[in-house]
């Protein structure tokens, strides 16, 4: 069987010592930053982005992915112990996780969320393994019009579903596309929007942009708001054992959570945060005792934690098979691939089978390592929570500065990171979400290229996007999403709290 051969190839790639090492580094770092509120997944991935220049592409991807799904594991720790989500995807876990910790059942919550994450991730990986090839085969039939339509769908979905106002999300996406156009135009060689800086002719550096928007901005917004924990938790193995009733109640939550997470993860633009919220809402609706939710019931942590991990894994499906990132994290993964000259998309499976299957198999290894990191070693992560933020953040600023300098050995990038940090902070205060901006930035050049190519093929007729059935349906779906998003954000507009300046712990 071909699949079996691929899996063996993947396993041998993933077990090569170099890849194995970076997989462990990635998930350990992911857990670490997931545990600490105020240091986001995106910030860390951006921080480590420069290192990927020095790594083999497969190892680089394995590490970056490890940070991403590792942080979702670690993020539940802060949710449960501090009532502060380590990452936005773990925010719902606070609702029942923190009450459990207050009742002295924090150990159980920590163990069970790890189990939930593992189950969710496993479902996601199985889907990724089974469906990547069929989807890639369909994708081979796509022309530039279809690609353009799917990218527009992804961008609109990402901005509409993201927290906050839909119109602002769309604005950020469009702004990102514009930012992505900075630099030399491939077709004509004309340098666009370079403001006279030769450094900008190659485009705005993704590292400077990501580190500015997510590193510097987040630090500025977190300084006065993040507190360290002084928790003395009982985290012996014995304290972690759940009761038989709790185990029984967890199954349903995990099954529903993994289904919801996997389905939402495949859709472009819908990330683990939405998946976790949906899973919690569904769980509450189907429960016979909905009044238990919010008071420390085990289903309330199992369903969202399964869903966010399943969604983490499933979001690799559109990224790897179509080359269209569904989220900002995936945009960074694609950025890393392009740095190494690998064009993500359906041809990746045939041209780079070792890399593709190696990455998939590394997810298994990474998730097993995460279980080891999160169960026997949980005490260590709890101690990390007690490091005060005022010791951490000057060091993070240092990492940002050196990391961004190291990309081109040019101080220009440090000025750029400063500029984007300030811009990102202003946007944040004005209630714009900076994440869709990065997605637009990565997709911008691809969007232009496919748009131009589609128009060239149709001899300048805009009808091509409607004449081709796949592209038409995708665009109709996009329009529906757009109308729904704008309509629902207009409805919510009634009350706006004044305390919006506080950071969303990410």
């Amino acid at each position: 069987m071909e699949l079996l051969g691929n899996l063996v190839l993947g396993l041998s790639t993933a077990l090569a010592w170099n890849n194995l090492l970076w997989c462990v580094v990635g998930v350990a770092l992911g857990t670490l930053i997931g545990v600490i509120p105020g240091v986001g997944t995106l910030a860390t991935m951006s921080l480590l982005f420069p290192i990927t220049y020095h790594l083999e592409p497969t190892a680089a991807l394995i590490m970056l992915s490890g940070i991403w799904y590792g942080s979702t594991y670690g993020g539940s720790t802060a949710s449960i112990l501090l009532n502060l989500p380590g990452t936005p995807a773990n925010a719902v876990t606070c609702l029942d996780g923190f009450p459990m910790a207050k009742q002295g059942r924090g150990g159980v919550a920590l163990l069970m969320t790890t189990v939930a994450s593992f189950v969710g991730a496993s479902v996601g990986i199985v889907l990724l393994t089974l469906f990547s090839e069929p989807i890639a085969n369909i994708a081979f039939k796509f022309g530039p019009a279809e690609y353009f339509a799917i990218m527009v769908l992804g961008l609109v979905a990402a901005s509409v579903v993201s927290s906050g106002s839909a119109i602002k999300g769309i604005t950020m996406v469009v702004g990102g596309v514009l930012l992505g156009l900075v630099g030399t135009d491939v077709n004509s060689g004309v340098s666009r929007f370079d403001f006279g800086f030769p450094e900008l002719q190659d485009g705005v550096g993704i590292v400077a942009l990501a580190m500015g928007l997510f590193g510097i901005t987040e630090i500025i917004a977190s300084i006065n708001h993040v507190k360290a924990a002084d928790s003395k938790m009982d985290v012996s193995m014995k304290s972690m054992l759940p009761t038989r009733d709790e185990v029984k109640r967890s199954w349903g939550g995990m099954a529903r959570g993994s289904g919801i997470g996997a389905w939402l993860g495949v859709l472009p633009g819908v990330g683990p945060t939405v998946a976790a919220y949906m899973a919690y809402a569904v769980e509450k609706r189907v429960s016979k005792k909905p009044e238990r939710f919010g008071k420390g019931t085990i289903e309330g942590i199992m369903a969202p934690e399964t869903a966010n991990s399943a969604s983490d894994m499933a979001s690799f499906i559109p990224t790897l098979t179509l080359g269209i990132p569904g989220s900002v994290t995936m945009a960074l993964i694609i950025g890393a691939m392009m740095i190494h000259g690998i064009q993500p998309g359906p041809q990746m499976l045939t041209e780079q089978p070792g890399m593709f299957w190696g990455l998939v198999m590394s997810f298994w290894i990474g998730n097993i390592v995460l279980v080891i990191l999160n169960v026997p070693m949980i005490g260590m992560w709890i101690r990390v929570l007690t490091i005060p933020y005022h010791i951490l953040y000057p060091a993070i600023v240092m990492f940002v500065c050196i990391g961004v300098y190291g990309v081109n050995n040019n101080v220009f990038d440090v000025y750029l990171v400063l500029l984007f940090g300030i811009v990102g902070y202003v946007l944040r205060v004005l209630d714009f979400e900076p994440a869709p901006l990065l997605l637009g930035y990565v997709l911008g050049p691809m969007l232009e290229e496919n748009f131009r190519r589609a128009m060239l093929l149709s001899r300048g007729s805009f009808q091509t996007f409607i004449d081709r059935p796949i592209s038409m349906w995708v665009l109709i779906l996009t329009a529906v999403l757009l109308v729904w998003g704008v309509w629902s954000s207009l409805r919510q507009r009634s009350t706006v709290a004044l305390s919006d300046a506080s950071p969303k712990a990410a």
Partner: protein
Amino acid sequence: MRRVDYRDLLGGGLITLVGAAAMYHSLTSFTLGTSDRMGPGYFPALVGGVLALCGLAILIPALLRAGPVPRFEWRPLLWISLSTLAFALLLVPFGLIPAIIGQTILAGISDCKLSWKGSLMLAVGVAVGATLLFKMALGLIVPVFAWPW
């Protein structure tokens, strides 16, 4: 005075300006081409126009309702910016360690939770750690100490 949503007014206004400027620049400085053979200006002009429209869509409703006044936390914004700036300015003329020490100390002023002594100790610690990691282990091309004169 009539109450308006200052936050969205400011945000929408800035976005409209950026979009309009990008559109104007693309229309005037680059060749547009035709829709079947697009020049370098066609797509950016389109995107700039859409951005300006988005800005207007945020700006206009903001005039009709009351809303929160944006609150900037100037202190961390200023000191973190200065900290990054110090690093950029000091790195090439003075070298890695002075740049990191300057950067760390300035960053520490943002919340003033450390004493001068603690701040200095942290700065030296971070600088030494960073030198070992980036210079020795990762081989970053930058002098550890330099003297511009």
